[in-house]
């Protein structure tokens, strides 16, 4: 989904939060319809195949997994910038160096020794597992990418970057509808004229219909009942929706994208939210966890949708926020002494009331529930929103339906000569599915104390 749409959606959301909830629902439905349309349109318009060579793709992949922690294409990191390296060195030399640089140095190669000394004796890892073709692919990748891409305006012609104006579409549809109705009326009047009847205007027709309906008692009774029920129904759901913040999508202090981290790069949720396995809190990663990767990845290689370096080869301003929080001097690649750290003030999205006790470890470790079950497709979210309702009814429903992970030793094991919980459950429930409800998961005191 285009980023602008997301932002727009976000802004719309924030603005509407202050007004009536009913309005949100209507707008949201509208929006869903429009979004589906947009996606369909976009997909149909976007049938441009990527005309890239396969080995460059492979090279990019291999570069990211093997080289990126020390090398950049356009800039010195721990090791030299690699763009255009094939012009500087022979392919054969590069193959030897990459496979086992220590061996090359030991063999007395002057170039190898010189580069080793230039980088203060930092030892590069050996990659004996890389095949010649792999290395060639990597080299092809380093060649394929322009060294410095000039900052470019995003070209307006590309449909993917075009923000779709949903209200404009609405007007167009509306226009068509009016045109259609007008045409129909025209046809009707023409037909009437042919039949020799009197022409009637729309207003006249409407007045006649209204008079007939108002005079009809049955219709009036039915209409009153229907509208009352509809009103009460809407009122009930309006009241029930108070405090339910599904789709709550605040703007965060750092434009962190779960789509990039959890989706594209397949970072495990537990890598950053490590306490989810141990504690009641999933835990927002502390800044030093970000630094595990972002000490090397500063975002300068990020491309925009046009395939052009997004930040003109400069450090991403979002990643710079991490550096400023923890006090990392990216130029000298060291932490600044006595730096007054600035903790990142994230906006909490999932807010349970204080009266409800929720424990992540219970669900993640003991229950084996996937994060996505409650948090939705986070790996597809650029900006995270609240996916589930987080109401008590939502919790209870899941507890009614979900089977307990009875393979856990807590249920399955028992001391010699005693019954395990599983055996006792089998005595009581026989072959029935053991849901959370059956072991007491609906009891008040399990979550409220």
């Amino acid at each position, binding site marked *: 989904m285009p980023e602008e749409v997301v932002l727009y959606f976000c802004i719309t959301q924030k603005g509407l*939060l*202050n007004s*009536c*909830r009913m309005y949100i629902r209507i707008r949201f439905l509208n929006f869903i319809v429009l979004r589906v349309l947009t996606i369909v349109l976009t997909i149909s318009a976007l049938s441009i195949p990527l005309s890239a060579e396969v080995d460059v793709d492979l090279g990019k992949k291999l570069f990211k997994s093997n080289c990126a922690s020390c090398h950049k294409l356009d800039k010195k990191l721990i090791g030299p910038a690699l763009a255009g390296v094939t012009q500087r060195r022979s392919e054969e030399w590069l193959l030897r160096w990459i496979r086992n640089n220590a061996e090359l140095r030991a063999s007395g190669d002057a170039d190898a020794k010189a580069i080793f000394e230039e980088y203060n004796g930092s030892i590069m890892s050996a990659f004996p597992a890389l095949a010649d073709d792999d290395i060639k692919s990597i080299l092809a990748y380093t060649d394929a990418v322009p060294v410095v891409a000039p900052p470019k305006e995003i070209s307006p012609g590309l449909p993917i970057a075009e923000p779709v104006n949903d209200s404009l579409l609405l007007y167009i549809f509306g226009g068509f509808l009016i045109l259609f109705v007008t045409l129909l009326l025209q046809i009707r009047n023409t037909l009437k004229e042919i039949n020799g009847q009197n022409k009637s205007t729309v207003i006249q027709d409407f007045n006649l219909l209204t008079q007939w309906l108002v005079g009809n008692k049955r219709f009036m009774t039915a209409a009153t009942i229907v509208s009352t029920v509809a009103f009460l129904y809407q009122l009930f759901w309006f*009241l029930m929706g*108070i*405090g339910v*913040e599904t789709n*709550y999508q*605040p703007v965060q202090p750092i434009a962190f994208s779960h789509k990039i981290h959890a989706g594209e790069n397949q970072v495990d949720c537990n890598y950053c939210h490590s*306490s989810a*396995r*141990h*504690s*009641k*809190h999933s*835990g*927002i*990663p*502390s*800044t*030093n*966890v970000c630094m595990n990767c972002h000490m090397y990845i500063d975002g300068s290689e990020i491309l925009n949708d046009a395939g052009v370096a997004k930040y003109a080869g400069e450090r991403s301003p979002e990643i710079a926020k991490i550096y400023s*929080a*923890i006090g990392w001097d990216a130029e000298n690649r060291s932490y600044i002494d006595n730096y007054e*750290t600035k*903790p*990142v003030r*994230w*906006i*909490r999205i999932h*807010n349970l009331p*204080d*009266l409800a*006790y929720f*424990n992540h*470890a*219970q669900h993640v*470790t*003991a229950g084996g529930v996937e994060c996505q079950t409650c948090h939705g497709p986070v790996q597809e979210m650029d900006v995270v929103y609240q996916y589930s309702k987080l109401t008590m009814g939502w919790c209870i429903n899941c507890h009614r339906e979900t089977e307990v992970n009875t393979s*856990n*030793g*807590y249920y399955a*094991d*028992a*001391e010699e000569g*005693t019954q395990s*919980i599983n055996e*006792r*459950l089998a*005595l*009581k429930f026989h072959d029935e599915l053991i849901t959370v409800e059956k*072991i*007491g998961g609906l*009891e*008040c*005191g*399990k979550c*409220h*104390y």
Partner: protein
Amino acid sequence: MAKDKVYWKGFDHLANTEVSKRLSENEFAEDIPMDQFLGDDNLMGNSSTSRRDFLKYVGFSTAAATLAACEQPIVESIPYVVKPDSLTPGMPAYYATSYVDGQDFASVLVKTREGRPIKIEPGDKARFNWGTNGRAQASVLSLYDSARLKQPLKAGVESDWTTISLDLKEAIDQSVTEGKQFVLMTGSVFSPSMKLVIENLRQSYANLVHVEVDAISNSKVLDVWEDLTGVRSIPGIDMKAADIVVSFNEDFLSSSIPQQLSSDYAFRRKPGKGMLRHIHLESNLSLTGSNADKRIKLKPSQVEFSLAFLLNFVSGTKYHVGKIDKILTDQLERVAKELIAAKGKSLILVGGNSTSNAYLCAALNAALKNFGSTIRPDRPIYTQSGSDLAFDNAMADMNQGQVGVLVIAGPNPVYNRIGFDLALNNVEYSLSLTDRLDETATLTDAAAPVPHYLESWADFAPTNIDFSVSQPVIRPLFNSKPVIEVLSELVGIKKSSKDLVKESVISQGLNWSQTLHDGGASIKIDSETLSISEIINRAITSVKVANSTLNTIDNSVMEISLYQKTVGAGYQSNNPWLHELPDPISRCSWDNYLTISAADALAMEFINETLSNGALDGSLADIQAGEYSLKNVPVLIQPGQAAGTVGLALGYGRKKVGKVADGLGVNANELNLSKGFGSVVISKTDGMHQFASTQLGNTMMGRKIVNEVSLNDFINDPKGSTWNEKPTYHTLDGTIGTDEANLWKNHDHETMHMWNMSIDLNSCHGCGACVIACHIENNVPVVGKAEIRNFRDMHWLRIDRYYSSDMTAEIADMEDIGVVAKYAGMEKPGVSPEVVFQPVMCQHCNHAPCETVCPVGATVHSREGLNHMAYNRCIGTRYCANNCPYKVRRFNWFNYQKNERFTSVNPSQDDLGRMVLNPDVTVRARGVMEKCSMCIQNIQFGKLEAKKAGRPLKDGEINCACESACDSGAITFGDVNTRNSAVQIAKNDSRSYHLLEEVGTQPSVFYQTKVRNRI
């Protein structure tokens, strides 16, 4: 038979007054004061708001609230920048440390959450004094006391440490040139690193005088032991080796001696053959005395003659015994015979700071061959070392202007010694290193904050075989500096307290990390005490001298004996939890008072009266002790008080401790009784005092509430068929037990866990540490004196205390007393009533009367045998509380966290005090019921830990707060579905019974019959 005994809760209960009756029918004696919590009375009366206006406001505010609720507040979530490795948000971390507050010493475990200490738990059992009493439990709140000194003060103006250090150094240098003394006044020092620093200081400054002073002096006893053993220390006591303990005025269960004995006492009091027999002789009814098998009342002045009498009887000597009346000598003879029968396995303890008593006690123990078995001079305890002589000399020097510099680090002599405030005027420069601007620190030239024990590094050698360390569990909250750093800077050593402690630990040959992890280590330093034969010789020789100094005291003189309540010597007076806990005996909270016997009260026209709302009022008295006096002391009639004696608790009457306790009670130190007892003149004054007593609350009349049996009956009938009969019902199907007579279907308690709790009434001493632990664990609000007086205490766990009549069926049979006379006798209070304690919390009934009456289903049953309480469903009808036969449900009458009426007492009203709240337990709002949850947060936590590890639950893995706070192991909690779990064994024990079993509530809590070792 034991079950025929009549228990009564107080004089009003006994007389069965109108109020008492009404309270037994309703939970609250008077109507609910709507106007009080709705708003100001005057405002309500003068208001021009009509009904119509009111409805408009209601309509508008409902609409406004609904609209306002549409928008969610923005909640920030701020992670660490660099998260400490040892910390996982949401998970507790435990650290071993040592608790010291100037009076007590204990090895404890501190529970921290997100880097803040929230609970104190008993330490490793290998450490010295591993148990936690009420003060140790409550001490975590003292850390978050907003009355603590935050900045160094110079002449009352905020200053800094550099200025303080410079001033001190300059003043000391001046005192050296002027030839004046540099007095360092501390509490008892038993920290090796501190001792080393003071030694260094002594070498640098020849004019240094180090004075150790204890808040409650034990100096004379220490002098005696120094004379006898060669080392100034109290000998260790091995209660486990004793078969009989005879204690004279020594409240050893409340730890007025520095060794914690309650766990050993409980261990030896397990019912069965060889159960420890306990005879207690005292004037006030103490906690220890109320646990005794035989309690003999005597006046404090009779102690020394009684000891001499016993000594004569045991060793055939002829010491001067003064005039003791026949009744007492008869009783003493019986005691002496028992002691002779248990030679070498007996233990004599004596309380009070008296030289002659200490000599006589030592001689008696020597004559009974107790040295080396129950009394261990080779295990000296160093936690007390204060010297009255050194203090008096220092004060005399101060008065004569010979003191140039006075540094007070710890003690508060202006509060607990007479005349120190005047002596301070003659000191050129005085500095208080103190935790708050107390009575002393406000009078010194400068005052500077020291860290709380949870913020400090320290080491201790409480005995010759134990070494303990103290480590900080939180960064210092204020600009404080440890005493040890201040002192070592004076001799030019600029090291942190951590380094000093580390050096000390390593010098003991210990591993630093291991010692820190364990909270200490066992060491072996040979004690320098003399050989046991030499001690016995000395004890026997010195007693002659001591005995010759005894004076006979006129029997008609009123004698006072000072004692300690939960608040102790008053170091933690500003801790509301200690005041909120009702006194175990009198059940009065937030007060100290003169306890007096009913006979003396009658003679002196002191009255205790119960008002129409059930609150207790008492007369006031003036006390004159020689030239010292105390005015307007409230008088409480105390059953079991020896005639001709009165008692008064120490630790009250503080003036500069903080908003909680300023002006609470009277200061017993003003009577200047260095021995802890003496003769006084009592006179009645006008006016009445309002007590906050819980004594009339929640009466449970004349049924099998506390079941009791004598040891002989217990041994003869181990199955309990004669002394633990189960109630039965006669139905059409025949006679059935209470568990079969059901109106409802049984819950499924077999499939999952079934949490039960056993309370052993034999091990429960009634100290109340569990009540405080429960308060802390469950965020129970403090309500203050006025609300307790209204019987609106919020304790989830209370300890009921019942007095009994001395008359029992056995005595009636033996002495051939008729039925009418027997029952009349049972109704009367005994001359020396026996006391029983019974902790009562929610019984988690499996057929709970509360559950059936809740209109909104806020209280429901779980399949794990618990009675759940969902606060957010509760609409406050209080129907459940009315229907509860145990009266354990508590209603939140106020928003204690916000209402300004509770600002001075409720710790959670300021940001600092709020830090102590347990983040796993909801803080309840106004208008909801609450009650014991059996620490369900711990149950859930324990289950989850097992699931995370993928293993079944282990017995003893999950603890309730009350259970872990109990040193004596009276409370056992666990899953009865686990085979051979401690609680399953307890449930099947013949002593086990349910409270009010005949009601048919089938509680999950059961009690173990109390066994008394009567002869």
